[in-house]
């Protein structure tokens, strides 16, 4: 039996994540309500706009159930906006809705605007082959708390981090054919 892996489907590229999870061997489930979280073995918070995701999660009562599920050990991957949404805070002047389940402070749009967006081959700790990583108006991690492991960095700034069962990437593993990041999430689900 394959595991059920949720994708938060408020806004963003949740379809690409669902396809990536299928390719990695899971059954994807789109999550739009708290009830959709029942029976999941893993969760993905996709790329999109973090302010939009936060506003919708707050308006539709998803913030507390998400905190409870992820805080309770649900293996979770956040990519780009998803990383921002999982983190404790941003470096920006204006507060936005965040789950605070990853002890990291994130700088939004850290690499610049869309004309500065790029793709590159990224070295990931413990992986033999580099990972093709697509950075789109991407954030990066500025500060990490205890227990946060840095798996990849660009110019000394973390862009892939893990804290226990929470995995965050500043880039978009769902936009390439390489399924190693989603496979890692499903392995974390298997260890549970």
């Amino acid at each position, binding site marked *: 039996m394959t595991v059920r892996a949720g994708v938060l489907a408020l806004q963003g590229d949740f379809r690409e994540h669902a396809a990536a999870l299928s390719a990695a061997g899971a059954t994807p489930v789109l999550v739009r309500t708290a009830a959709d979280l029942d029976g999941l073995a893993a969760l993905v918070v996709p790329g999109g706009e973090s302010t939009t995701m936060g506003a*919708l999660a707050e308006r539709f009562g998803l913030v507390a159930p998400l905190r409870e599920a992820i805080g309770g050990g649900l293996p979770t991957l956040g990519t780009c906006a998803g990383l921002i949404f999982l983190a404790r805070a941003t470096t920006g002047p204006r507060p936005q809705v965040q789950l605070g389940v990853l002890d990291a402070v994130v700088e939004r749009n850290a690499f610049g605007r869309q*004309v500065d967006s790029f793709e590159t081959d990224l070295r990931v700790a413990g992986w033999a082959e580099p990972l093709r990583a697509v950075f789109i108006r991407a954030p990066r991690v500025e500060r990490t708390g205890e227990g946060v492991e840095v798996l990849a960095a660009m110019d000394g700034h973390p862009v892939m981090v893990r804290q226990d069962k929470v995995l965050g990437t500043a880039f978009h593993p769902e936009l390439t054919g390489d399924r190693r990041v989603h496979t890692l999430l499903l392995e974390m689900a298997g260890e549970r």
Partner: protein
Amino acid sequence: MEQGTVRVKRGLAEMLKGGVIMDVTTAAQAKIAEEAGAVAVMALERVPADIRREGGVARMADPARIEEIKAAVTIPVMAKARIGHFVEAQILEALGVDYVDESEVLTPADEEHHIDKWQFTVPFVCGARDLGEALRRIGEGAAMIRTKGEAGTGNVVEAVRHMRSMTNEIRRLQTLGGDQLMAAARELRAPYELVREVAETGRLPVVNFAAGGIATPADAALMMQLGCDGVFVGSGIFKSDDPAPRAAAIVAATTYFRDPAVLARVSQGLGTPMAGLEIGRIPPAEMLQTRGR
């Protein structure tokens, strides 16, 4: 490190999916849009309803206005260039806007040619009324498509027509044999390679949003149920009598487009929408959608 790749350009549009892009003319409006949950704003001098009413030549917005709007929000900022006006596009790229809309809402600068969008690092979105038009724009380098609809009318009928036309033509391509695709490409006046790709995948190779005449949460959900990836709202928000709640309601409707109970709840008490125009009463010379084919 590679910048401006097809994946990077189309990728930003993927991130906007399921979201609402709102026309704004001031920094204050941009902030209202961001707080309501917009995924991006379109920086303009005048919204389409005003362009339609006031007439005259509509051009790229004042760069100072675009800078103000960029400084006011953290979400992507788009801006419009006239069809074929590649220098306006160069200026918008230099300003660091996140997407250029080569738009029929502005007065065309070239009646024969669109911008060669492959020459740019900044990605482009273009309007289309049918599949052939969409594939011609993608062939020129557009990284995102939207229906043209009929902007500034508050009347969704043309956007519906354009989306249904694209869906029907894609379905028809899927029923054809490989030996029929060249004839289909000629009929659609579209690049053969793209026609072949659509026949195989059953979808456009780029994200396709709804635009032109969307004024209510129900309009947004209608376009989403018809298969659009997201929604542009032009005059519909800031020409209504209470923009902030209407903007938030359209955002909610674009996410929960298949949930009529949510749609009923968010549609309540929004005040009066923009007045709207019947398409049949617009003189043919004033139709925006026929500009640039």
